[in-house]
């Protein structure tokens, strides 16, 4: 980061991946607390607040560095983010994910029913709205956990895989990533409906 001769802050490298920016090995499973500590260490060294009296060039480098470190941390601080980053590093994009996995027929049917249920809830015509929402929510929640479990197990495999087996593991990660996007879309719909239905009523006796 700093020039070995003059100590001045140098510009960040262009095109580095998020793991490289943070100076970490490319891994799906990491200690998120340690990742956050690493982010703060780098930030302490690079943040514009601590370069306020430096030359304009160094200030610009500090801003570029600092944003790059923040951007990198943002991309890899969650499990899903790290899977996405690993896939991107190996040339798998969202478009390839869509071809890698399509929702099977029976899932489509189930999702269709869930969406119908959510439509009804949004129209306000459901009597026991909170209960109905709760049961839909738990189905989608279950899928979310499923995807997460898949990501963790394939992620673990990727982290230890050798050159030969990596490609296969990447394909599996890609499937999980596509499943995740599908379920995440549905989940955000559930969240929206949750807001429109409002908080569950206070239980009797809690007032007064």
């Amino acid at each position, binding site marked *: 980061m700093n020039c070995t001769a003059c100590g001045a802050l140098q510009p960040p490298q262009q095109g580095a991946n998020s793991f490289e920016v943070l100076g970490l090995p490319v891994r799906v499973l990491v200690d998120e607390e340690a990742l956050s500590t690493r982010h703060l260490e780098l930030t*302490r060294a690079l943040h*514009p*607040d601590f370069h306020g*009296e430096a030359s304009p060039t160094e200030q610009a480098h500090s*801003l570029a560095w600092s*944003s790059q470190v*923040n951007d990198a941390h943002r991309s890899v601080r969650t499990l899903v983010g790290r899977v996405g980053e690993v896939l991107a590093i190996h040339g798998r994009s969202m478009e390839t994910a869509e071809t890698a996995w399509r929702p099977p027929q029976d899932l489509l049917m189930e999702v269709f029913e869930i969406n119908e249920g959510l439509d009804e809830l949004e129209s306000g015509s459901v009597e026991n709205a909170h209960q109905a929402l709760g049961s839909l929510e738990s189905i989608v929640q279950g899928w979310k956990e499923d995807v997460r479990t898949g990501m963790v197990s394939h992620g673990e495999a990727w982290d230890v895989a050798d050159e030969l087996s990596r490609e296969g593991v990447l394909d599996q990660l890609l499937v999980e990533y596509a499943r995740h996007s599908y379920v995440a879309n549905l989940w955000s719909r559930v969240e929206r409906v949750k807001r429109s239905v409002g908080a569950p009523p206070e239980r009797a006796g809690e007032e007064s």
Partner: protein
Amino acid sequence: MGIEVGFGRSQRPTERPRVVGIDLGTTNSLVASVGEAGEPVLLRDPQGGGVVPSILAFRDGEVDAVGEPARRRLLEDPENAVYSVKRLMGRALEDMESQRRHFPFALEGEGTSVIRIRMGERTYTPTELSSHVLRELRGRAEEALGGAVQKAVITVPAHFDDAQRQATRDAGKLAGLEVLRIINEPTAAALAYGLGDRDRGVVAVYDFGGGTFDVSILRIRGGVFEVLSTAGDTYLGGDDIDNRLMDDVRAGLEDERGVQVAGDADAHAVIREAVTAAKIALSSDPEATISVQLKGMETPWSTTLTRAEFEGRIGDLVERTLGPCRQAMVDAEIGPEDIDDVILVGGSTRIPLVRRSVETLFGRTPHCEIDPDEVVALGAAVQADVLVGGRRDLLLLDVTPLSLGIETMGGVLSKLIHRNSTIPASAMEEFTTSVDGQTGVDIHVLQGEREFVADSRSLARFTIPIESMPAGIPRVAVRFMIDANGILNVSAVDVRTGRERSVDVKPTYGLTDDEVETMLMDALNHAEEDMERRLRVEACQEADGVLEAVEKGLDSPAGGALGGEERAAIDGAVEALKAAIAGEEKASIVRARVDALNDASKRLAHLVMDAALGKLSAGDAAPSEQSGT
């Protein structure tokens, strides 16, 4: 070395550049700096007042008074006073339509152009008006610190968008300040509380000010104050509580007295003062009387408001603050049980209902050990100290309150940087051309959480210049960067050649760089006038002191001991000085005549001093205060 005896002050302030933190508020503004001991202190006027009301008074269309004198003028001559300017910062007239009746000023502007406030022949942008408040604070700081102040950190509501932040930074520039950083008010408040006695914890800052509401959740560890989430409402503040009560008073006046007050600036000012006083009283008293006497009314109209009634009237406004609090917790992925401390900021948090609501929501008694009106300025001073290298143990990591995106096909907002991202933050996007020979790509940048451009706030437009080539061949990478001030910077690079492309960003709302430049030139001219005016005021104050002392001396026995020639010289100098003051001569002339009078009255000063010393040694002037009980 002899002791100089005279009637004038001999000490002049020494030059020392200082940095300050400024809370530029809707209702009140404050300035603070970090003292020798490293602790932030509020800078006060000689009378001990720490607050500058964010009010301006005009005479013949020119700004004539700022702060407390302007507040008094607001009551006497409301047509020539402006307040709550912060609510207009970075806004266009079209943004203010729903609130217009609460602003009894003549607002002008077309489309998305900057709103202007008409005062007589002239119109002013909110940026210009705010710069006068900042200049007043700067003057106060210079007086308190005894030297020039050129650098400042200025705070804004966390929910301010790009245009509002830029307008605030421009106001600082116009006031002759180098704005080191724009920081968020709730974050500043957290800094003011500092680390306390623990090194880590999660803090929620509930900031309910005069014009805006913000909530921020921070994680503190190892001296790093990291904002996890922020939420709020830029159109919700104590002003709304006042407006609610003002509507009630207007209705009462109309029903019971048949008085119509719509559009009457005098009535507006009188009613506003009455309801604000009642609101403040209700924070400590069970009931308050609102009494209003307008011109032409024989007896005042009055009504009594109990605290319960008041709470009934504002309950929904307070409730509206709780939504963003819940949102902030969801975004930070924490629950109330994870929050260690809650901090209260802003005058509206003095309202008991607000405190109760906050306590219920978060399940703990909120902190208000530091005056909720002062805490933001104190925190800004701490950050200013960090920025000039004063301390390294603290670091502030804030987030952007709004998502940043660009317009894509079909008027859809494609988000590049999501809200609550730690700043500085950036996103890179590659663009190409869709037809052969196209020489530019138009980009529309917006801020907001909605899916469509129509529901988002336009931030800026610009065109990336591209060399004429077949469609799809050029590749330009554009970097959108939100800097540590929360302000957008755009840069573009030709991917093939690696050459930088210059980008001319035109803000949708707010001022172009040229407009700011013009205002700056204008302000520079004013700055000289301001400086002269300040020097003159100081010189006249000193002159008054010397004149009083000399006249007292002449009337005393010491005066009788003077020779005729000496006496005449003093009388002549007194007359000359009085003439300079009455004739509104320049500060330098007033000062020269003060010096002349001091010179002429040197022997008189000695005689007075000797007489006083003689009295003391005679023992008949025992200080009365020291008598014990």
